[in-house]
């Protein structure tokens, strides 16, 4: 991922800052600059999500792209944030700990790096909530 493309979404990736359409009330994470329901008549503002959510579905990735190959097996999940939107993220837990319906919360982790000399991509993952 290029330097500027990673940088552009740092507040979103680090702090779960998405958006909300104040016209219809719908929340978006990942963020959208256009509400699919209201489109041009929707007023969009930033919204910081709490980071609490529930696992909708998951898998254990055992064969990954080059960038993630040495971190397998890892749990990949679709997580529904309490505010409504769903996102895709890794869960930092052992594969056997993952369950549909599990409560999770966000943590700050190193997602990937652009090789040994490139920029480190930090972002949000989730861990099981006790």
């Amino acid at each position, binding site marked *: 991922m290029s330097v500027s493309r990673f940088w552009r979404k740092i507040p979103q990736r*680090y702090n779960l800052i998405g958006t909300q359409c104040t016209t219809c009330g719908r929340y978006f994470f990942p963020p959208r600059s256009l509400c699919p329901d209201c489109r041009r008549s929707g007023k969009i503002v930033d919204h910081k999500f709490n980071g609490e959510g529930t696992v909708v579905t998951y898998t254990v990735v055992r064969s990954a792209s080059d960038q993630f190959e*040495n*971190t397998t097996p890892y749990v990949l999940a679709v997580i529904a944030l309490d505010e409504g939107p769903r996102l895709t993220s890794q869960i930092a837990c*052992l594969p056997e700990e993952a369950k549909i319906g599990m409560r999770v919360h966000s*943590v700050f982790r*190193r997602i990937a790096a652009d090789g040994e000399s490139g920029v*480190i991509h*930090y972002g949000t*993952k989730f861990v099981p909530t006790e």
Partner: protein
Amino acid sequence: MVGIYSYGVYIPRYRIKVPEIARVWGANADDITRGLGVFEKSVPDLDEDTATIAVEAVRAALRRRTVDPRAIGAVYVGSESHPYAVKPTACTVGEAIGATPNMTAADYEFACKAGTAGIQTCMGMVKSKMIPFGIAIGADVAQGAPGDALEYTAAAGGAAFVIGEGETIADINHTCSYTTDTPDFWRREGQNYPRHGGRFTGDPGYFKHVQGAARLMLDAVGTSPKDYDYAVFHQPNAKFPQRVAKMLGFTTEQIEPGLVVPRLGNTYSGASMIGLAATLDVAKPGDRIFVTSFGSGAGSDAFDITVTDAIESEGFNRSAAPSVAKLLANPTYLDYALYAKHKGKIVMQK
């Protein structure tokens, strides 16, 4: 009075036991455990580093007590394992807590006392009214060369202290330091692992500087060890802090809550700060805490701290983040091979 407004700690969930490391190098596990007083040490997950540990520690501090991010005027991260040699960990931390852009930041290095140096800087900036709040973090993914004595204790973890004035949970009555140019333990630029002077790290290193700063402090404040409820010393192993406590006149009971190294290992820049955090986890209003850190190179920072009523007030929620004891409980153990993979000790195809 300037002091601690909130604090937070992060320790990864993984551990490796000292006997498992001894097994690989053909050493006697019992001798090592007995000699160091350390049973196991923390290991970072594959996606954790000093920056992620630092962020989690600060976020824990901010869960205990709300601080307006706009009022955070400075962030200093002390570490021996900053992810970048050039590009401050403090900037990433500042961004991850929403304190940017109106703040100053920098990374510190002073071996195991880089974090406490950050506390001193924040104290000065807050006391002089340059900033309302400053955050000092000591965090490390400590490295010890394979087969070296340091490998048994080099651990991962960090602590963050929010420094402010008025309404503090613990006042820092006084701080002083003792610093010399002493090559007891070092790492040259570009080298993977630190080197050390063996037994030279003891008396000319740790003991001289810890005692130097401690005695300066006791003189300056006009106290003696019995005036304190607790004492926290830098803990590269369990023996050094136990010995220096005795040399200074502190008791085993005083240092007990702050002695985290047996089950944590040495988190380098996080070490004394996590020890202080563990003490604050159990401290009550009025308790007085004596802290002396040590960083090779060499130097020690001493602090005289009095816990205030605010630690039990509604404004501060100690249980909003896990205590050090909680973070040390129920770890997941790794064998040496996975440990080596987690610590980046395996030579990969570049």
